[in-house]
């Protein structure tokens, strides 16, 4: 390993995201190269400083004050739920029904036949035939609503919508659609307003899982496409129409670690090493945006991929 490669991978090493096959080479290089070892040591020492820096200490009476306020809140009469709350929830549900409708259309037999793989390995078939249960898909069953019974009796689609908190407004939902939607999860929090759409492609080790997540602060993603190398005809294609921006995650496994790249950070200059272990099934992913184009490729199973980012405008010039 050269010093340049070592330094590029140093941060990944420190967050335990360096792919297995690189770790040994990295550590070997560190053992042999004084300069790189020194740089690694400096990074570790700065982290050590952060770890050792004392946390702000709360006043001694803070706990008692919080408990007194909590007790008062417990004994306060609960306010009536305003009718507008139901209107908002109904509006949000209507959006979901519409979205599921799009998914049902995409699941039409003709479309499915066109997308179906000619041959599917046995282990994939098992995973593909298994439909997720309500319990599996309802991640936050605070308000569980089984919605959108499909109008297509042959291929019933199931949508389980979890609303952990009241959706603030249906207007906050971005436009989106994904082919063959099987489940939809809407998550709302003030950290990240996100919409996650999982594709109906076989889950588990047999196939890709596509997630499109939208956060308001990110930008530029227009389309995303994942091709499945082992089932080339089963193209999972998704178009995320995002006006103000998005964060795009392409993930195959349930741990959602295949590819993640936050396009909001415009530090992608030259070659950036992504903290990703790309699945053997995903061979190619192309992310296009207004100004950035990234091509992710891999062919080796469980290999770390390198994300090559280039400024499309600069290239044109």
């Amino acid at each position: 390993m050269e010093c340049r490669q070592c330094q590029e991978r140093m941060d990944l090493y420190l967050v335990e995201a360096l792919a297995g096959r690189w770790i040994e080479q990295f550590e070997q290089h560190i053992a042999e190269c004084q300069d790189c070892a020194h740089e690694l040591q400096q990074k570790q020492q700065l982290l050590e400083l952060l770890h050792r820096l004392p946390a702000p200490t709360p006043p001694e009476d803070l706990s008692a004050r919080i408990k007194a306020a909590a007790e008062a809140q417990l004994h306060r009469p609960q306010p009536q739920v305003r009718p507008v709350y139901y209107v908002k929830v109904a509006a949000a549900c209507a959006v979901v029904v519409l979205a599921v409708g799009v998914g049902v259309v995409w699941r039409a037999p003709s479309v499915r036949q066109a997308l179906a793989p000619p041959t599917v390995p046995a282990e994939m078939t098992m995973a593909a035939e298994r439909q997720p249960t309500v319990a599996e898909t309802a991640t936050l069953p605070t308000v569980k609503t089984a919605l959108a019974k499909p109008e297509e009796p042959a291929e019933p689609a199931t949508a389980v919508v979890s609303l952990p908190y009241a959706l603030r407004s249906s207007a906050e939902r971005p436009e989106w659609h994904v082919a063959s939607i099987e489940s939809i999860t809407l998550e709302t929090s003030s950290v990240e307003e996100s919409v996650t759409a999982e594709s109906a492609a076989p889950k588990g080790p047999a196939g890709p899982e596509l997630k499109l997540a939208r956060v308001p602060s990110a930008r530029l993603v227009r389309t995303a496409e994942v091709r499945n190398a082992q089932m080339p005809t089963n193209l999972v294609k998704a178009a995320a129409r995002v006006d103000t921006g998005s964060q795009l995650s392409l993930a195959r496994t349930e741990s959602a670690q295949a590819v993640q790249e936050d396009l909001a950070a415009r530090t992608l200059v030259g070659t950036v090493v992504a903290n990703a272990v790309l699945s053997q099934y995903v061979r190619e992913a192309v992310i296009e945006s207004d100004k950035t184009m990234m091509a992710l490729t891999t062919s080796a199973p469980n290999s770390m991929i390198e994300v090559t980012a280039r400024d499309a405008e600069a290239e044109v010039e």
Partner: protein
Amino acid sequence: MRIREVDDETISPSQVFVEENNDGDRPLAEASAAQNIDDNVLVKAAQQGDAEAFGILVDRYHSQIYGMVGRMCGTDEAEDLTQDVFLKALKALRRFQFHGAASFRTWLYRIGVNEAINELRQRKRRRQVMGPSLDEPVLTDDGLVQRQLSDTTEEPYRLTVQNELQQVVHKVLEMLTEKQRTALVLIDLQGLTYEEAAGVLACPLGTLKSRLVRARGVFAEKFREHQPQWTPNEVI
């Protein structure tokens, strides 16, 4: 003294302790036993309106939440924010359910992060309207200078260095984006695991690590700009 484990979800934590002998140290023993009650039991009791159970959760986590929001937003607002976090948690507690590895602490941290970010956004808006606060440190050629004098009554040198480092760290944290700052605070300052922090932020583990890598890079660069003389051996 032996403490019986609670096996009924409806039992209040106040009923958890059964004193087998009367040796006169009941309050201490109860306090000690309270610390050993599983979050799950406390949450379920609190969901049924048990204020004492919620109080134990407050005792258990208020320092962590205070530390986190203090590091995110500074300590001036940390008390109010911490109280808000627990009151919001209490309000939403009935909807909380344990899911696999998801813990009450993770959920509480998530509320805390939301509160901190809301505070930062409000502060940003206020600053745009009213200009910088007079209490904020002043950036000079010598780095950041606090307008208030440091408390140096105890261990003056160590506290001065520590205080200065904390100020610089806080100032540099302010230069990070919300997401970067949150990742850095949760993992490198609060000591959450990657998995916990990803749970708090409801994002994939890889995304979290990606943010952390960027956050550390920006932090290191800015920290060295503001504190070029810092050496790792410096007293903390």
